[in-house]
């Protein structure tokens, strides 16, 4: 249950306005999560500013997906605090309530509703009352239809609107899921590997879209593709073994000796990916990331 300052409960369907007077929309403080002794997150601190676009990078097992799970309520941390704005304590809410206060998530593997049409997929994701009776008797308003059409245009699936989602290609499913995120009008978008399996051109369009979303929304992107990260990132946070290793602009992070050490091992001091502009992992850093064994994936 969400409680306002006076202690009176607000229903999750009310549009909760996070208090961002300090410029921060997402507070993650001292969060630790362990699975059978393995520390997936270790006293992690992360602050996402309102309207920024932040990239999270890190080897597999660094805790990126676990962090997303904690923020979206899938995993309860052992210790720590997660706040949305200043007053909404996300640890008090379940997954659906967190979604309704305005935190949207795109999964690593595209998960869309396969047996439903593209149109229905978007329709279900629209912001609004998610109660049973509204769903049973409610009809789409003209405004909502326009909104769906607009989203379909944005994600380039207008012609496929009435296809079953199962018929879409992998890249189209990725886009549909992004469209579902947009429909929910979230304040914060958590995007897990948005360009995995996309062609170069699709990747470019995704980069454009995510950059255009920042400002109005806060966007947190987890991505392995360094070229992609470089093309969109203003601030990059590097996770390592469940904590923040470095934070700053891409070039700052890349020249950070700690990061180089962790990413490339002792023997290579080279920049982690300048020779790699196609966005596919090659011999250097990225492949190392891909190859590391982990719990994720």
């Amino acid at each position: 249950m969400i409680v306002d300052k006076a202690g009176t409960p607000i229903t999750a369907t009310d549009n909760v306005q996070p208090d961002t007077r300090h410029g921060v929309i997402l507070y993650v403080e001292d969060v630790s999560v362990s699975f059978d002794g393995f520390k997936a997150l270790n006293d992690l601190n992360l602050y996402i500013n309102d309207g920024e676009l932040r990239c999270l990078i890190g080897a597999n097992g660094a805790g990126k997906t676990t962090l997303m799970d904690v923020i979206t309520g899938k995993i309860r941390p052992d210790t720590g605090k997660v706040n949305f704005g200043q007053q909404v304590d996300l640890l008090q809410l379940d997954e659906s309530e967190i979604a309704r206060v305005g935190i949207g998530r795109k999964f690593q593997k595209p998960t869309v509703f396969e047996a439903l049409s593209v149109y229905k997929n978007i329709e279900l994701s629209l912001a609004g009352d998610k109660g049973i009776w509204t769903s049973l008797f409610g009809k789409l308003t003209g405004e909502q239809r326009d909104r769906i059409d607009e989203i379909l245009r944005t994600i380039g699936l207008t012609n496929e609107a009435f296809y079953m989602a199962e018929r879409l290609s992998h890249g189209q499913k990725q886009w549909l899921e992004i469209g579902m995120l947009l429909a929910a009008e979230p304040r914060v978008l958590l995007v897990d590997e948005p360009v995995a399996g996309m062609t170069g051109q699709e990747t470019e369009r995704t980069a454009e879209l995510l950059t255009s979303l920042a400002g109005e929304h806060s966007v947190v992107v987890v991505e392995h593709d360094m070229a992609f990260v470089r093309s969109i990132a203003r601030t990059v946070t590097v996770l390592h073994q469940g904590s923040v290793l470095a934070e700053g602009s891409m070039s700052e992070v890349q020249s950070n000796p700690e990061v180089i050490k962790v990413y490339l091992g002792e023997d290579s001091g080279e920049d982690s990916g300048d020779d790699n502009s196609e966005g596919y992992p090659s011999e250097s850093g990225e492949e190392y990331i891909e190859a590391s064994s982990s719990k994720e994936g």
Partner: protein
Amino acid sequence: MNMKTTHTFVEIIRKMSHLHIVVGTLFVATIYVSFCNLAFAESSFLHVSDYTVSLFGKYLCYALLALAVDLVWGYCGILSLGHGAFFGLGGYAMGMYLMRQIGDRGVYGNAELPDFMVFLNWTELPWYWAGSSSFLWMVLMVFVAPGILAFVFGMLAFRSRVSGVYLSIMTQAMTYALMLAFFRNEMGFGGNNGLTDFKEIAGFSLQDPHTKLGLFVVTAIALAIAYWVSNYIVKSKLGAIITATRDAESRVRFVGYKPEYYKVWIFVVSAMIAGVAGALYVPQVGIINPGEFSPLNSIEIVVWVAIGGRYTLYGAIIGAILVSYAKTRFTAIMPEAWLFALGGLFVLVTLLFPKGIAGALPGVARRFGLDANTNDNKTNKNNAQSEEQGTLKAPRAGGQ
């Protein structure tokens, strides 16, 4: 002229939705059976016997039950192996009412107590029999009793996120537990004999052929209404959410819905439909006993739906009626082989037609040019969707 008539006929069929076809077929069948039962003499070739009327009534009850299971299984992915419990509860609610209608015409002539209570030396009605002589109370209980059981069960199971095989086993245990409980004489529901020897319903004698016909017609109407309601549900946004829950429950959560409550809701609605089926079944067969709670019965319902085709409402109805008809025929010839035949049928259909009979129908319709869209389209669902949206016509995958 003839060509033209055929053409118009084909056009009409193309334009009809399955809702029209099912309700229309039910209507025509009901009129036909009623007319042939009433208008023709027993010796006539066209006469439909009273026995057949009751038999059809029974099939329609099964169809209603199959519809209920299809709603939760086909659309929401909850494989309930315990829907016989809701059917049984609805049946007992009706049975209690019918027992009270016997009045002093029982063997012991006790106006207050049903025979089995007199036999057990009980002196007054248990508290839960209070009100059972009222028709309205009975109607209420037909919905409320299965509804409450489904609600409590659903809240416990779905909120703790039990699903899949574990859930199926729990539903099975639920109906088994009810069966054992109802077998006990102390429960006050007639023990293993159940409730029987009914005389009349709402003042009409149950021995009267007209009453039997009336019950058949009421069952047909109930099935039509349930079909319409189910169709409305699955076509609504709620239906889409339920289907989404079936395929990707955690995603539904991240979109902001609480799938557990949606599951409880559809489970309760389904249980109520099953309860109505049970209530209509009892006066037509004249008895309700704990055997209805047997896990085997519940599994048989699932087989009907699988054979008919889940995820289509009419598939469930087709499956229930065809399999029940086969059972009637088969058990008359060689009763001991029926279960083998049923098992074999189940295996065959699952292997050859994974989508059941209904899954094979669009192909048949296409062959005769009767479907709404003769263009190549993997599923008809596409078309249904685009028609339903109205304003936004999708460019059909035509011309291929």
